């Protein structure tokens, strides 16, 4: 073979590699489309047929560290649940609080004798799982408890929410049930509205699809109900080895052969971060937990089992599409830019195909999601529309409606873009998905400066909330690779939720 052949082989191999990169970038889009197309099937494949009236004795464990601002209201709300009071016991595990949490809880214990209990840990700060385990050890000491509800101190349960969870435990095959945690702050800002919309997409929508496919990724940490049998089967305690104890518990339940159900009609309200820095801290903890879970359950992925559905192709696809989303985004940009210089007509074709698919998936998923929680959809319509960011929407329009942005609009404005301008624009849209993550990171950096109050929200609306989460995921890769200290950074809650 002569050298010219080698050059051709090299060229074709590089072309194929770049096309592969773009194809990898399309996988998360296809996975999202698949997941959201499965949602309507929840009309037929749900757990209601096996649910039954069931009001077991529920022990509620509330981990609390300096929660004086919120814990009293939470206890009052729990005691107002439409649930037999004699079947409710609330154990507040006070994790060595230094504020007035003990006094508030003790006052509530006196107000609701036999229903509210104050448990004090003198050595605190070890993390939520340790705090929960302190309470779990106590409730397992006798056989009163038939079901265990794990919640956060700031979470407000709507009155019918607990009984809507317990009905699924009437089916002994179900080990745990989780509720829809809606963003419930009274003083919403742009970020809490984005989070509210994210929760519609990731819970009300995506978890219905996971119900259909028979495997749930995560029980919400703030509202998860376990049967006593399940709690004992998973070891009678919560995993303390990671920052993702909720996900580990969810996996252990399903690996043990029990089902986990998401109940969309059980709604609880939670207070979420108003600043990117706080969101970053919270989500970094979650993302690092996901890195741990991916590693710990490495023998589960894509290995179908008769006992559970965690090893199914669908579940693996959903999991890794989120876990590796930033990687897919970067590869997509690299592939498109490489193709642009190597074979620009191929770049145009695959760009249009990928981004047109992204546009269709975006329109379908947002249109469906806003209907699933009309209240949040109406309140956060701007954040719903701008979830991927204004610039990404322009890029999608560029791909979906060829020549509109590059030709028709400039012509209508009496401007003919030069060839150089078009080249710069093309390279920009090809690189955008990666640049968006950079923009989100800059939004975090400028937040604490004098201009941050204006510039950070503007940047997030421009680059999108999704890229912000991806930027946090990248940070989690880096922190895990460096074995950075995995300490429990609690998100501060000040009682902004209104029920």
């Amino acid at each position, binding site marked *: 073979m002569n050298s010219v052949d080698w050059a051709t082989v090299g060229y074709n191999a590089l072309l194929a590699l770049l096309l592969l990169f773009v194809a990898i970038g399309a996988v998360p889009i296809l996975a999202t489309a698949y997941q959201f197309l499965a949602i309507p099937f929840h009309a037929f494949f749900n757990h209601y047929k096996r649910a039954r009236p069931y*009001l077991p004795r529920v022990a509620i464990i509330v981990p609390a560290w300096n929660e004086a601002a919120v814990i009293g209201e939470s206890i009052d709300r729990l005691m107002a649940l439409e649930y037999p009071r004699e079947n409710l016991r609330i154990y507040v595990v006070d994790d060595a609080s230094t504020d007035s949490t003990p006094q508030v809880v003790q006052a509530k214990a006196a107000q609701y004798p036999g229903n509210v209990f104050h448990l004090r840990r003198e050595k605190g700060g070890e993390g939520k799982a340790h705090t929960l385990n302190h309470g779990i050890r106590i409730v397992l000491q006798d056989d009163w408890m038939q079901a265990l509800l794990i919640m956060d101190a700031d979470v407000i349960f*709507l009155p019918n929410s607990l009984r809507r969870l317990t009905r699924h435990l009437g089916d002994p095959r179900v080990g745990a049930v989780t509720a829809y945690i809606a963003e419930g702050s009274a003083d919403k800002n742009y970020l809490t509205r984005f989070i509210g919309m994210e929760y519609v997409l990731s819970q009300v929508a995506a978890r219905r699809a996971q119900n259909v496919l028979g495997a749930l990724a995560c029980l919400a940490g703030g509202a998860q109900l376990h049967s006593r049998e399940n709690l004992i089967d998973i070891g009678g305690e919560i995993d303390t080895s990671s920052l993702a104890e909720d996900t580990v518990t969810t996996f252990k339940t399903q690996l043990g052969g029990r089902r986990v159900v998401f109940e969309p009609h059980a709604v609880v309200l939670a207070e979420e971060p108003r600043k990117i820095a706080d969101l970053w801290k919270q989500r970094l903890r979650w993302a690092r937990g996901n890195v741990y879970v991916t590693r710990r359950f490495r023998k589960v992925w894509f290995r179908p089992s008769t006992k559970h559905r965690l090893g199914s192709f669908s579940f693996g696809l959903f999991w890794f599409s989120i876990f590796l989303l930033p990687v897919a985004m970067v590869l997509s940009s690299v592939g498109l830019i490489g193709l642009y210089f190597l074979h620009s007509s191929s770049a145009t074709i695959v760009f249009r195909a990928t981004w047109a698919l992204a546009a269709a998936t975006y329109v379908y998923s947002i249109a*469906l999601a806003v209907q699933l929680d009309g209240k949040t959809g109406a309140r956060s319509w701007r954040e719903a529309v701008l979830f991927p960011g204004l610039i990404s929407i322009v890029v999608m329009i560029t791909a979906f409606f060829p020549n509109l942005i590059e030709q028709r609009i400039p012509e209508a404005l009496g401007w003919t873009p030069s060839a150089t301008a078009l080249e710069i624009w093309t390279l920009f849209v090809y690189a955008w998905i990666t640049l968006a993550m950079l923009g989100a990171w800059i939004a975090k950096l400028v937040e604490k400066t004098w201009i941050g109050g204006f510039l950070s929200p503007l940047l997030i609306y421009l680059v999108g909330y999704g890229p912000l989460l991806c930027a946090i995921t990248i940070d989690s890769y880096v922190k895990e690779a460096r074995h950075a200290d995995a300490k429990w950074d609690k998100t501060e809650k000040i009682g902004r939720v209104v029920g």
Partner: protein
Amino acid sequence: MKHEPVVELKHANEGSNAGKVDVLPLTGRNPGDAFLRQEIEDNRKAERVLVLRGLIAVALVAALVVVRQVFFL
């Protein structure tokens, strides 16, 4: 059984998602099996609207595809 005053139950019907419960609860704290059974059934039926909502979302995408095909290709 200790009967307590019926608490506010308006939220039982909140939103179109939640379905409609016709059977009245016995008490606020323990509405009774008939009510709970009815609530399960109503929530199950309320899920059927997902099909319509999915179709609306698909129709929106289809409309955009038609615009694309007619005006941009």
